[in-house]
């Protein structure tokens, strides 16, 4: 993802702003890192450059 995506992304749960943490870049692409809600503190992972903004309970359904 590009950082410009952050302009319109928000926390799926409470719709507050997200902050980019521990970002690793490839050019202007953010390839990994976390998106942390500025309000509830929930974090959402960026995996292979794709942010996973599923609500945490749906994300955890993933078979291990």
């Amino acid at each position: 993802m590009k950082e410009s995506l952050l302009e319109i992304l928000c926390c799926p749960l409470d719709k507050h702003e997200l902050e980019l943490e521990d970002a690793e870049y490839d050019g202007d692409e953010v390839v990994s890192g976390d998106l942390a809600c500025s309000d509830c503190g929930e974090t959402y992972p960026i995996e292979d450059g794709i942010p996973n903004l599923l609500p945490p309970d749906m994300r955890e359904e993933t078979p291990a």
Partner: protein
Amino acid sequence: MSVREEFDEWATDGRDRGMEERHWHTAKHALARMPVESGDIVLDLGCGSGYAGRAIRDTNDAGRVYGLDGSPEMASNATEYTDDPRVAFVVGDFGSLPFETNSIDHVWSMEAFYYAADPHETLEEIARVLAPGGTFYCAVNYYEENVHSHEWQEFITVEMTRWSREQYREAFRNAGLSVAAQDNIPDREITIPNEAEFPIDDWENREAMVERYREYGTLLTVGVAT
């Protein structure tokens, strides 16, 4: 199975591309109607292979197109199929969209809306993220009047909502979306074999197949946020 498990499987066995090919027959006509202006931000809900976003960028000079999908494998395939820097994908769920209020100019969704666990909630989320005057283009092949689609639920573990044309209009309005248009877009491209070849696949007779594709086709409902 969850949306994630079901559609991760579809993405992995190539059904994302198969859907793209079939859905394009009608999706392209619906996409051609979207009043996308240069610079607009467009969201594709349940993007699958992401072809709609690619098409919108190619034809309309949209500013940015984002595809959201509940299946990480779909989003990952979609990312691979394009290198347009203005197209990007996000994993997320229809029930709680991770986008700011009023941040999107147009929402597109093809053959995906009815998988929402609570379609009314999803419409409210769409009305929330759309800027005033923004449109929601909702295209479905699975709906009440299309009797040939009723059996589809048997083949999929995710529960599907089967609304009629009227239920779509009513639900849009209840969510604060004005209904601007609704119609059936026929699929004029799919090959329908000669009479003699029936029964074939799922089709008992030719008339049924003609009705399914050439008449019912895809139901498009267009809503406008206020």
